[in-house]
């Protein structure tokens, strides 16, 4: 029984330690998915979460400034002004009407994004069951 106990202790220590690390990593990196509509109904602490929002880039809304790129994401009839402040150039697939996924936090009515992923609306394969659309990522 003593032997068994040693193994049980050893295994528990390892599992608990790793679980703690997992919990820490989870707290550090969790990101909430929200739709644009949901974003406007968030309140309090929920607004400080890191989050991902997806939508379609409104045609003609992309404007470049020094240090940031502003554009508007649309989805479900709502729109969301976004400022991209990451340092990487935006992906090539990021154009008017492309589908984009932005990651960051809402601040003062704008969404400040550090990461923008985009995929272009695939030309031929728009039909259901169609597949690989390429995407690229820009990160901070």
């Amino acid at each position, binding site marked *: 029984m003593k032997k068994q106990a040693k193994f049980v202790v050893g295994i528990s220590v*390892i599992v608990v330690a790793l679980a703690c690390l997992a919990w820490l990593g989870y707290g550090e990196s969790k990101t909430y998915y929200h739709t644009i509509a949901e974003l406007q109904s968030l309140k309090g602490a929920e607004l400080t979460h890191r989050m991902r929002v997806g939508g379609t880039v409104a045609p003609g809304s992309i404007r470049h400034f020094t240090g940031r790129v502003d554009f508007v994401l649309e989805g479900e009839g709502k729109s969301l002004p976004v400022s991209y402040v990451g340092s990487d*150039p935006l992906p090539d697939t990021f154009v008017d009407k492309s589908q984009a996924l932005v990651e960051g936090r809402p601040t003062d009515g704008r969404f400040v994004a550090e990461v923008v992923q985009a995929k272009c609306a695939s030309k031929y394969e728009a039909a259901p*069951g*169609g597949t690989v659309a390429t*995407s690229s990522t820009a990160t901070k």
Partner: protein
Amino acid sequence: MDVFGSFALLLAFICAVYAFGGGIAAIITRHPLLVKSTRQSGIAACCLIFIATFSLEYLFFTDNFSAAYVVSHSNRALATFYKVAALWAGQEGSLLFWSFLLSIYVFSVLIAYRNKNGELMPYVGVILAGVQIFFLTLNNFVASPFKALAVPGANGAMDLVTRADGNGLTPLLQYPEMVIHPPNLYSGYTGFTIPFAFALAALLARYPGEKWIHLTRKWTMIAWCFQTAGILLGAHWAYAVLGWGGYWGWDPVENASLLPWLTGTAFLHSVMMQEKRGMMKVWNVWLVFATFILCITGTFLTRSGIVSSVHAFAQSSIGSWFVGFLIVIFSVCLVAYLKNRDYLKSESQLDAIVSRESSFLFNNLILLVSCIAVLSGTLFPVLSEAVSGSKINVGAPFFNKVNVPIGLFLLFLTGVGPLLAWRKTSLESLKRNFAWPLIVGLVAGVVIFALGCREMYSLICFSLCFFVTTTIVMEFYRGAKVIRVRSNASYLTSAIELTMRNTRRYGGYIVHMGMVLVFVGLAGVAFNQNVQKEMQPGSSIQLGKYKLVLQSFDSKPEANYTGLRLNVEVFVDNKPLMMLYPERRIFETNGETGTMVAIYSTLREDLYVVYAGQNPDTNLPVIHAYLNPLVKWIWFGGVIVVFGTLVALMPNRRAVLVLSGAQQPAPEPLVHGMTPSVTYREGHD
């Protein structure tokens, strides 16, 4: 050819159904003719799948733009090389490719064991046919790659059309690695079907343990080898093509490929517990089951788009088929286990905490924890939505926090485990085996610390790498010395002779050595630097010891794309070193762009230069340059791992010397001060 191909697929489906149904009948009736006919039907199904695959390739090579799949993934100007790869560029082709590779395995197994393992093979045949039926159902009725291109006509009906040219292959796939990475990874995924079939068959047939373990282990190693190569090639592709300076981003698709690798690795180790001590039988069977289930899950994650990924935002209805299949597999495994679990009773118990058994136990434990962590992290958006209603994603910090310590612990076990004795290890043997490695590891750690390394994990990693390398080198040295005393050959020849006599043990060490090199490379990531700058001709970036000067930029039209190229000269200490040409390719057919990263790679570090884009205001190019230390070691280590696995797969050379030696009474005088068991414990690993 498209009708021909789809007809071949349909026939293959029928043959597989017969192999399945007839196989079950054969198991019940044991009628020899039925056994034979179902086996042949299984072989026929494989051949028909080969024919279907080749006919799809034929459509690509003949630029047949009346086939929808060809239009989507190829065009006339596409290089021949990439027309081969276009086969697995999309959903339908990938699934056919899965069937194709699985058929190669099934074909080999059915042919190789046609006159062997008579009790087991009918079961194996039925299980393999079952898996084939699932994929053939998808190939035939859900995602046929042979659909003709059709558009809605004036009268509302679909009209067949032929296009003049196709849409082209997505540029991300137009890279040499993309031609060899998916076949490797898929060979890994499909390969794990064979051990699964053997394990399940053995359980159902209550087949003697030693025999199925032996068969399963060999096929697991083959699949594992492909999986390892596939994962590393994928990492290299991500590194060289995606242009973000890294090779592993904990992307769902990457994770999916890692999961079966983790359980497969665990199995390859714990299987030895069963061979030597008759322990962990239930565990082993479930590891094999889990590996296969994770392979299917991996394919499901990749193909269904349930978790969005950089690789494919594929959204399709195919997911429910996979979920159904997973439920079926799991139920079959569970029922087989519950029905025959008494057959898996353990023959011995764990004796001591410092023993080979316990090192395997901990190895398995943490591999499994890693697997669970990666799986739950990957599925977190799905799980959290189901539990709490809000979709939460976890990123790289989560995966790294858990897996970095696990990796280091595994590295430690890599050094320690093989030198521990079975049952119980004495203090003397610990001293004898670990004194030198410990000293070397600690000294290396101190030196590296003195050289300025302050990253804790990297420091531990480097130190462990030295420790493990010393243990491995000592093992080879000891064994080679014994042979050398008898044959008077050189140390190198003796070491090769030693390896050939016990390929499994020493091949395993070579694999471990490869993993050590991989870890050296991984530890380098803590020292990555990068800088990004908008460049004018003549302006420069300083990164580490390198100075990058933009000389000029030009554009060059090619057959399939236009290349925008930067001519960057690299200086070290103000002396010109070389030119680098980071490039962006604009593909004409679909307007997509591709990045060609310029990499100057040395063992010390990679200088990695990306043409990141253009500033839209000034139209000047932006360069993103990375300095990534030690990356090359990862690829090099991968080659060693694959090599070691191939060595371990070779049959042992019969050692005349050793066999005659085994009959002599006193080996001690010859191997003074060394463990005499090195020569005599052949097959003991």
